[in-house]
């Protein structure tokens, strides 16, 4: 951190611990379950895309997505990597230079799609990494 930064901190608090605590207090509020990094529902409908004449199955699939805060302190349900745990703390100390970890998929799953081709042959194929199964802070 720069000297200017230290001056600002001195203005705001008497000790780095208090500044950290303050920030921690603020971040802890945003780390509660409602805004924390987690999986959200997202459904992709082949039927609504008008594809029911050539896609036999499925009618659609739950792709899901990850969203939420990865702030200090990272809770157990956030599936954080050890590195992410360290990064949240560093972000707290140095927010301009080190970002918070990202809320992203930790486990992805394939789906199988059954469909006709132009010649009315039927194809069954597995497509990897189509569905988010769990999210975490990276």
């Amino acid at each position, binding site marked *: 951190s720069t000297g200017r930064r230290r001056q600002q901190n001195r203005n705001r608090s008497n000790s780095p611990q208090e500044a950290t605590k303050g920030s921690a207090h603020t971040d802890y509020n945003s780390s509660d379950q409602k805004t924390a990094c987690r999986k959200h529902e*997202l*459904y992709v409908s082949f039927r*609504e*895309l008008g594809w029911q004449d050539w896609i036999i*199955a499925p009618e659609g699939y739950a792709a899901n997505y990850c969203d939420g805060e990865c702030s200090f302190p990272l809770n157990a349900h956030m599936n954080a990597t050890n590195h992410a745990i360290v990064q949240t703390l560093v972000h707290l100390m140095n927010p301009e230079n080190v970002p918070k970890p990202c809320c992203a998929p930790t486990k992805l799953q394939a789906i199988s799609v059954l469909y*006709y081709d132009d010649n009315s042959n039927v194809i069954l194929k597995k497509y990897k990494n189509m569905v988010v199964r769990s999210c975490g802070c990276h």
Partner: protein
Amino acid sequence: GSGSVLDGSELQPNFIHRRLRNQEKREMQKEILSILGLNHRPRPHLNSGKYNSAPLFMLDLYNSMSTEEKSDVDQYRSLFTTTRPALASLHDTEFLHDADMVMSFVNLVENDRELSPQRRHHKEFKFNLSQIPEGEAITAAEFRVYKECVTRAFRNETFLLSVFQVVGEHPDRDADLFLLESRRLWAAEEGWLEFDITATSNLWVMSPHHNLGLQISVETSSGWSISPKEAGLVGRDGALERQPFMVAFFKVSEVRIRTAR
């Protein structure tokens, strides 16, 4: 049914449930087609609203894959044998474990050669393998034909069913044939008959000009040639869900790199 892309998250009340605009729909379609590895949206020609045997078979495999993803392999096998044992067999599901893709092929041509008693009756089948995606290699292939029970004229009779690969065609005489398999069947037998045509299919993919189709012929135990239809083999004029077809299991032989849009 409120939209193409729905976000059911109750924690984001400001997310609007809405139908995609035309441009958004087109973008979504393009992106998903790209993921599926398709250059364009397929436009199959389907004769009726009902599925024939090939889609039904593939639907069985699809359901077994979906069940397998959810539960233990042993559990899904026991489930499978109680649902539709006459269609996809355990044999096929074993191929499925190793396959990246399964494809069933429509029979393009079925000629019933009803000839004089002195000549050999046979049925011909042809499949178009030219649309197989690049980078996929056949690991197993089957020709499937349904046999119905026929006891009226052939009580206690057995048939010798032979499947041939056509290796040469001639306008003025019978085709040159290569015997793939012969099988003795009871007239009273009923169910799907599967014939391994893996090597034949690989040849057809590597050398499309060698793809002259298959022939099947049937003889009685006394050596008389009879039409496959008389022996109970279902053809094009039979029930939709019992039409003959070909199925192939594939494994990726090269990594497909998706081009950036």
